[in-house]
C-alpha cells in the first residue's frame, strides 16, 4: 500500500517501433506537480495517454490509488483522473458554459441534469481560466488560446484528483501561461491533487513543477525532484544540445548555450 494517487509498476510504453519508456516506476503523490520533459517526438503524449488508460502499455501496469487502471471502468476512472489533450476541436456550436459543463458527465446519472452547483462550478472554472466574460460565446468562435483555456475549464469542471496535462501552455501568451499554471498549482497544493504535465519549456518546469521525469527517447528515463534533476548536464544530455544555466541573482534560467 502506498499513498500515491497514481503509480506505475515497471511500465513499458511503445508507439509503433518507438520505445517511449521501459520499466518505469513512478509514484505520483498528492500535492506533487510532475513535469515530463524530452525532445520532440519522444512520446510524451503517448505516455500521458497510457497513464490515462487510453493507450495500452507494452508491459507493466498503471495504478490509480490502490487499483490497477485496467480493472476500472472508464466512468470510475473519469471521476478520479482527467486529461487535457493537446488539441481540442469542437464540431458543433455550443456556448462555452455548456461546453465546460460536459466535464460533469462522469459524475451524473444518465437521467439527471446538471444542478445549480454544477453550473456554479462551470462558471468558476471559466473565470479561473480567464474566460468568465465569454461564457455565452460559441465554442466555435474562439481563438486558439481561448479554446485551449476552454478545454482546461472542462477539465477543472470534471475536477479529478489526478490531472494529466498535455502541453497546457500551447497557444497561450506569457500572461495566460503563468495565469493557468498558477491556477493548476493552486489546485494541486490546496486541494491535494496530483498533476503530470508534458512540457516543452524547461523554465516553466523549474518554476512550477515539484518533480520532473526526463525521457531520453530510447526507453531510458530519469525521475526525481526538479531541484536535483534539472541541471546543465542532464538537460544538455536530454535535448542533445548544450544548455546553460543563466543566473542573474534574482532568477535562474536554462538557455541554449551560445556557440563560442
Amino acid at each position: 500500500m502506498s499513498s500515491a494517487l497514481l503509480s506505475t509498476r515497471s511500465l513499458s510504453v511503445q508507439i509503433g517501433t518507438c520505445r517511449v519508456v521501459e520499466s518505469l516506476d513512478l509514484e505520483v503523490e498528492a500535492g506533487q506537480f510532475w513535469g515530463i520533459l524530452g525532445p520532440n517526438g519522444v512520446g510524451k503524449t503517448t505516455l500521458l495517454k497510457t497513464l490515462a488508460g487510453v493507450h495500452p502499455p507494452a508491459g507493466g501496469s498503471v495504478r490509480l490509488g490502490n487499483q490497477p487502471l485496467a480493472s476500472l471502468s472508464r466512468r470510475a476512472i473519469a471521476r478520479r483522473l482527467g486529461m487535457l489533450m493537446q488539441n481540442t476541436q469542437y464540431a458543433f456550436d455550443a456556448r462555452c458554459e455548456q461546453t465546460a459543463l460536459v466535464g460533469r458527465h462522469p459524475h451524473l446519472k444518465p437521467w439527471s441534469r446538471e444542478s445549480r452547483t454544477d453550473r456554479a462550478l462551470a462558471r468558476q472554472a471559466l473565470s479561473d481560466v480567464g474566460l468568465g466574460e465569454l461564457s455565452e460565446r460559441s465554442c466555435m468562435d474562439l481563438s486558439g488560446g481561448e479554446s485551449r483555456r476552454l478545454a482546461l475549464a472542462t477539465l477543472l469542471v470534471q475536477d479529478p484528483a489526478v490531472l494529466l496535462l498535455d502541453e497546457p501552455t500551447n497557444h497561450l501568451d506569457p500572461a495566460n501561461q503563468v495565469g493557468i499554471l498558477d491556477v493548476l498549482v493552486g489546485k494541486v497544493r490546496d486541494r491535494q491533487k496530483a498533476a503530470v504535465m508534458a512540457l516543452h519549456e524547461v523554465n516553466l518546469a523549474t518554476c512550477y513543477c515539484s518533480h520532473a521525469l526526463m525521457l531520453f527517447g530510447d526507453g531510458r528515463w530519469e525521475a526525481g525532484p526538479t531541484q536535483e534533476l534539472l541541471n546543465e548536464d542532464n538537460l544538455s544530455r536530454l535535448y542533445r544540445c548544450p544548455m546553460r544555466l543563466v543566473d542573474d541573482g534574482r532568477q535562474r534560467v536554462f538557455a541554449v548555450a551560445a556557440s563560442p
Partner: protein
Amino acid sequence: MSDTRRFGLIWIGLLVAVPGSLLLAASWGSSGWIWPWTQDGSMSRIIAELRMPRAIAALIVGSLLATAGCLMQVLLRNPLADPYVLGLSGGAAAFALAGMMFGLVWLPMPLLAFVGAFLTMILVFVLAHGRGPWSTTRVLLTGVVIASGWGALISLMLATGPDASLRSMLYWLMGDLSYASLSPWWLVPVTLGHGLLWLRARSLNVLSGGVLQAALLGESSRARFWEIYLVASLLTGLAVSVAGAIGFVGLVVPHLMRLVVGADHRRLLPAAALFGGAFLVVADTIARTVLSPRQLPVGVLTALIGVPLFVLLLNRAVRIRG
C-alpha cells in the same frame, strides 16, 4: 427573453406543429381544402382510410430519419452526415428490393433494410477510416461512391425485373409515401424508443467531442459507438422499408433544430424527432397536392429543399476547417 421562457415557447411550438401538420394533411388534398369535421360519407372515409394512415406514416418516417441524422452527425462529428448522403438509405433500399425480387418473402422487409443499412455503415466507416485520419471530404466521398454503387445495383435489378411494377418501384426508390400506411398505434413503440434514446443524450454530447475525449470523460466509447451504429441503421432501415429512400430529412431537420434549440442532444433529439415528423407530413401533403391529380414522390420535394442547404453547409464547413 430568459432561456426558460424561450425554450417553453419553442416546445409549445413544436408540440403544436405535430397535430397541426396532421390536420393539414387531413384537410388538404387533390379535391381542394375541406374541414374534416364538416364532412360525411365518402370524404370521411378518404380521410380516415387514406389520408390519416399516410400522414401517420410520414410522421413516423420523418422522425426516424431526423433522429438517424442526429446520430450519424455525432458519429462523424460533422453536421453534413445524413443516412441518405452516406448511402445507408441506398443500401437499405437495395437489400429490401433484392428481397422482394428474389422472393425472400418470409424475411420481413424492415429486417432486410436494416441489414443493408448496417452493412453500408460499416463499409463506409472502414473504407473512409483506412489508416489515415478522419476527414470530412473522405467520409462524404466514400459515402457518395457507395450510394451510387447501390444505385447501380438497384438499376440492374429494376432493368431485369418485371415491367409492370417498374413505376411504383421507381417511385418507392425516390422516396414515396403513396403506398405507405401505418396505424397510430405505431406511435407507441416509436415514442418509447425515443424515450430510451433520450437517456443516452448526454453521452451523445460527450461523444461529439471525439472517441478519445469521450473515453476520458467516462464513456466506454467503443461500445457506445457500436450502439449508435446499430440504432442509426435500425432507424434508417425502418424508415426505408416504409417509405423508400427519402433524402435529406436527416440533414435539414437536425441542422435547423440545432439553430433553434442548440447542440445539446437532450434538447436536439426530441426537437428533431417532433419537427422531422411534422416536416415530412407537410412535405408529403404538398407533394401529393401541388400537381394534382399527379402525385410527386415526397423524396423529390425533400431533395429540392435539401440539396441547396447541403451545398451551403459544405461551403461553410470547408471555410471553417480549411
